[in-house]
């Protein structure tokens, strides 16, 4: 059948690129994500200039707005076992990262038109939190909403996570929220007309110390009480679920077959497209520069495209939230922490669940596209907004992964990237009203698991905002708790 391929690695045609344009995705990063061009084995070497040439002719972009997508290392598919041969000094903190890509959205991508002069609700942050909230507000009839996003959709952590969704948490509130989120994810395609490829292959947690093993056991009991079918399983049972898994040093394992992985990006597109249809403005490439505050209320949100007078402001900017809060003289206890992640060459399905070693934070799963996607937190990672990639991470991750699954030593890494966790002192979010600034609502601090919580949190937040009815969530996780309240710590954090 005759086709004109523009990205042969991923079978993307010229028509596919035009389709993305018709949906409003015009910048190279967005077209890459929507069509999948440049995500294959060659990582854009042969196709990117051809796509850019097409965009320069057919997309409403200024010439300076055509920038290549971030070139990720490695530039040639490189085996995990080779990366594992790199020495790492675990006593030192990671330094640097390439490329430095913060604040690099070219001004040429900023829309020329001014933003609306007023809106009832301004949501700062066009990640999954902000967009899910806007969507839920629209379901409740509130469409006088503006969502502000500093980059393209998917530019922040919502577009950079590994897509894991699980009910295995350490506190009742998180278990219940995750359960509700996964239910909503199951019907997402029906509600919003876009596939999110939820695959419930389960989460297999491994514990390598007695203390962590006790934690898994204790949490499994709690899960069962909430109707989550987590079970503590033997090493042999774990190997049956993941053939080839080495269980050396593993004390115990827990498995919930109903956890799974999703493809994160369509959530943002689905929510955003719905919002646009309902008249909600989603303003990408737009920066918040300050606030007009008087009488204990935010009166206006200032942006680099004009000011917006508003009744309510929601801060849902993930790891950027403390920076934005500072513009309103509000101090958040959140700290951004870089977490790196990588993706390998696509392979035929061989790995059912997402596997995680809770002690080290190692996690890996197989995406719907067949890639092994995984990461591992670095205990030495300093706080700070940094989304650069390091050789140190690939080396540490490769070693840990091969130790757990020796058969992947020859598997080649295609690209690595990073995103920022939005870390709070008790690993729980910051939600609800801001003391002394009543109409500034907080919706951040999800410590790397905001994506999977967003559908449920946004549903409750929209109900709380529009009805004014009491919801304990927004008191339990209020900012006040860090000065006056008791902290209830979540202990199932990975990555």
């Amino acid at each position, binding site marked *: *059948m*005759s*086709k*004109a*391929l523009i990205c*042969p*690695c991923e*079978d993307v045609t*010229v028509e596919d690129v035009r*389709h993305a344009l018709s949906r409003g995705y015009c910048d190279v990063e967005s077209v890459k994500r929507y069509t999948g061009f440049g995500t294959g*084995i*060659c990582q854009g070497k*042969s*196709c*990117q*200039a*051809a796509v*850019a040439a097409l965009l*320069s002719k057919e997309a409403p972009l200024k010439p*300076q707005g055509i*920038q*290549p997508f*971030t*070139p990720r*290392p490695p*530039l*040639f*598919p490189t*085996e*995990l*076992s080779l990366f594992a*041969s790199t020495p790492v000094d675990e006593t030192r903190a990671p*330094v*640097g990262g*390439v490329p*430095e890509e913060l604040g690099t959205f070219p001004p040429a991508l900023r829309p020329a038109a001014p933003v609306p002069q007023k809106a009832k609700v301004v949501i700062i942050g066009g990640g999954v939190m902000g967009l899910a909230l806007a969507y839920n507000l629209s379901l409740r009839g509130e469409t006088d909403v503006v969502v502000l996003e500093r980059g393209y959709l998917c530019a922040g952590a919502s577009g950079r996570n590994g897509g894991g969704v699980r009910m295995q948490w350490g506190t009742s509130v998180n278990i219940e929220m995750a359960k509700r989120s996964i239910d909503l994810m199951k*019907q997402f*395609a*029906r509600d919003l*007309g*876009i*596939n999110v*490829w*939820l695959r419930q292959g389960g989460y297999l947690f491994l514990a390598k110390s007695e203390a962590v093993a006790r934690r898994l056991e204790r949490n499994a009991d709690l899960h069962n009480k909430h109707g989550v079918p987590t079970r503590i399983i033997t090493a042999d049972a774990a190997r049956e679920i993941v053939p080839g898994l080495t269980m050396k040093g593993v004390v115990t394992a827990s498995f919930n077959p109903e956890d799974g992985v999703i493809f994160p990006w369509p959530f943002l597109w689905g929510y955003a497209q719905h919002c646009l249809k309902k008249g909600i403005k989603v303003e990408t490439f737009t920066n918040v520069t300050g606030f007009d505050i008087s009488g204990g209320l935010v009166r206006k949100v200032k942006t680099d495209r004009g000011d917006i007078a508003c009744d309510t402001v929601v801060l849902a900017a993930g790891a950027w939230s403390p920076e934005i809060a500072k513009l309103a003289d509000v101090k958040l206890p959140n700290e951004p922490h870089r977490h790196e992640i990588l993706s390998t*060459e*696509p*392979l*035929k*399905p*061989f790995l059912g669940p997402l596997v995680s070693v809770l002690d080290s934070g190692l996690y890996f799963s197989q995406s*719907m*596209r*067949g890639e092994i996607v995984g990461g591992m937190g670095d205990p030495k990672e300093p706080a700070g907004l940094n989304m650069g*990639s*390091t*050789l140190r991470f690939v080396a540490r991750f490769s070693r840990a992964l091969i130790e757990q699954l020796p058969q*992947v*030593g*020859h*598997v080649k890494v295609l690209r690595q990237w990073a995103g920022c966790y939005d870390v709070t002192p008790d690993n729980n979010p910051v939600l609800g009203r801001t003391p002394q600034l009543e109409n500034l609502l907080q919706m951040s601090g999800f410590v790397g698991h905001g994506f999977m919580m967003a559908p449920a949190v946004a549903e409750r937040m929209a109900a709380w905002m529009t009805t004014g009815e009491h919801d304990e969530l927004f008191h339990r996780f209020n900012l006040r708790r860090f000065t006056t309240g008791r902290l209830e710590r979540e202990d199932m954090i990975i990555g």
Partner: protein
Amino acid sequence: MRRIPDASPRGQAITVDLEGEPLPAVEGEPLACSLVAAGEDVLARSIKYHRPRGAFCFAAACSHCLMRVDGLPNIYTCRTPARAGMKLERQNAFPSAKVDLFGTIDWFFPRGLDHHEMFAGVPVAEKVMAKVARQLAGLGLLPTHEAPPRLPARSLRTRVAVVGGGAAGLAAAKVLAERGIPFLLLEREARVGGRLTRGAPLQDDPTVLDVASFPKGSVLTRAHAIGLYDDEGGRFLGAVALEPEGLRLLQIHADRFLLAPGGHPGLLPFENNDLPGVYAGRAASLLVREHGVAPETAALVGWGSELHALARLMEAHGTKVVAVADLRGPLPANAHSTASTGSDPKAHGLKRVGAFSFTRANGKKKKVDCDAVLVSIPSSPSFELARQGGASVHFDAERGLFVVQAEADGRTAASDVFVAGDITGGGTAKEAAAAGARTAEALIGGLS
């Protein structure tokens, strides 16, 4: 493609195993070369539509030639030297790449397949689709065996790291050598020379510099740069080198990075541009010059001086050039007799190229039978390393290329990153060599 009958032997004749059948090869040549020379055009099926694919770029810049080699998936056969007894298998096809039942997907979705919206929210269909998609996804099966222990990674330090041993990189290295500046030049191929040894020759091409005149140990061939990283010791180049004992990862710290990696073969989006038998122009020149392999009849399409130089090269080696479609024009004075300006190129054939058509400037369609279509457009700058190092990249809409922004002397927005040659947007090899020398001079001036 075939081996040119009177070409001098290029090495020892050996046999490799293609799915149980013996396949003649020449030791050390790229496996993809052995395959196409033996008439094996279909090497794989594509990831989504299961379209037949054959080797295209011979430069590790596409995915057409990936095969399972000795139990490992997705191996670039264009970069893997043939050794006797190697086992090659085609991937992503059932029951075989030649007769792939999943090839019907291509016909079911003549206008493409929107995986975002297809069956979205349709109760039973969406579940079935998810299951089918999971099974069809991915390329290649998990490796059959564990990786051997690797050579320990090596950390090196030099004054100047030069990436690329083409016209620009070699000219730069010559200046560095003459001035006594320690440097390390990385070349991913077995031999330096770049387009001077593998491209279509132009009249004013400089000669390939003899690396024997460089200080011992300053040139590393078969070494692939994988990234410009940084750590507490500053910026370093990550590279994977093929040493006699095996692959080794290198971390090369340097005071300056002189990037002359050239460009990737560009892609021209025309109908059936992925059909086996469509080759990048520089793949065709590489095959004919280095390996004595060429098509019997070829149609050429593209623009620029290399297009017409390629027509001359192919004809000189016995290929019958049946059409040269210049999509930009004007035609040079010494253009091939079949050359004309035109538009709307299209490759024809079911599993391999059988013909090529285009619309001539006078509006008349021209269709010619051929067994290869050679696409020669200016190469697409390999800006990736420079961009990782902090250099600016901009899109040159006129030429349709991303180019690294640099001063005439190779300076970029990053103080320790210099660039020369095709990475800045092309030109002839002579111009690249001049830029390499100029850049080396500028770089030395800033070294304390």
